């Protein structure tokens, strides 16, 4: 080898390999490759994967939260409009009911008034009738007594007596 190793001018040919370096080169590179393959690359890949998942998970969570918020908004709007229409219905109902109650009360009051009026009329009529009856009896007795005193004639006969009274009353009514 030595005649190749020494090129012109005595300088060694730098393009020729050196066996010890070749051996060490393979072993050293092989060892380093093994370390990278078993220790370094898997750990970095694990971190990359975890990072990707964390970012993706974050985005998914945010999207989910947004969707939930949108759902809640729709729901609240629905509930609000439902509540509004319900309260509208309730107010309408209350108004109708109130009117009905007033109407009913008025009718009841009128009826009561009518009843009271009727009762008053009836009682007045009864009293008047009573008064008429009692007056007729008393006026009859008084008149008979007066007449008998004036005429001096005893009107014992019952029939005649009542006839006289009736005639007297008729006259009395006619003269009214």
């Amino acid at each position, binding site marked *: 080898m030595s005649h190749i190793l020494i090129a012109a001018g005595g300088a060694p040919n730098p393009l020729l390999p050196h066996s010890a370096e070749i051996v060490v080169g393979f072993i*050293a590179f092989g060892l380093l490759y093994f370390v990278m393959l078993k220790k370094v690359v898997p750990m970095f890949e694990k971190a990359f994967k975890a990072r990707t998942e964390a970012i993706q998970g974050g985005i998914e969570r945010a999207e989910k939260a947004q969707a939930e918020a949108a759902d809640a908004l729709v729901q609240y709007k629905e509930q609000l409009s439902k509540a509004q229409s319900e309260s509208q219905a309730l107010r309408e109902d209350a108004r109708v009911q109130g009117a009905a109650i007033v109407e009913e009360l008025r009718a009841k009051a009128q009826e009561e008034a009518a009843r009271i009026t009727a009762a008053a009329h009836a009682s007045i009529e009864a009293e008047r009738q009573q008064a008429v009856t009692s007056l007729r009896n008393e006026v009859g007795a008084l008149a008979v007594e007066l007449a008998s005193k004036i005429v001096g004639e005893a009107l014992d006969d019952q029939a005649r007596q009542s006839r006289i009274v009736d005639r007297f009353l008729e006259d009395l009514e006619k003269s009214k």
Partner: protein
Amino acid sequence: MRSMFSFRAEGGEFIPPSSKDFVLPPIFGDNEFTTKPIFLVIFSVIIISIFFIAASRKASIVPSKLQFAGESVYAYVRNDLGKDIIGHEFMRFVPYLFTLFVFILTNNIFGIVPLIQFPTMSRISFAYVLGIITFAVFHYVGIRHHGIFKYLKDILFMPGVPKPVYILLTPIEIATYLIVRPLTISLRLFANMFAGHLLLMIFILGGHHLLEGAIGLKLVSPFAFAFGIAITFFEFLVQCLQAYIFTLLTALYIGGALADEH
């Protein structure tokens, strides 16, 4: 090391750095496994492993500063060099691409790290090792994906080409897949690191030599040093770029082997 003594030994005459300066003697006796480049490669494996194990050990959703630093490099290789180029099957090749990138990057940057200051990849053996592995990986992947017959047929007779063109194209394709690709990918890395280190040595050692010369030369030497520093920054760019290019080409070759149409 040798050059530091060699340029003085001639009694003031400057001996430019050469490929000799890349042949470092064993540190312990004659054992050729104890050279500086070999120690640097082993050292790089140790520090890369420690850094990335520490960065990924407690990998969590919210990264620590250390995790963020390691993860940025990893994510860059994984997404920009793996996913975007290889396509949906990229994950199988991420450990390889990532190892390649950080291994080459670290060993390249050794070239400008104070006290270390030797780019390991300027020793072509290491560049060959990586080139051979990439060569083996992309052919293996292609054969596994298409079956050996179809894979070879696609290489030898590129589909969609008029038949007479094969006379020209088939030898070129064979050369491309079997020789050019593994060789150029290794040589590109090696040559960049080799040339860069040579350039740095020229300016730094030259500046040093000027400093020891006459008064007029002493005045010029700061410019040489300043240029050396500028080249150092430039080298940093080249070192990163070469790590990127090697990994990118590997990803492209793998992607090509997996593609259904060549």
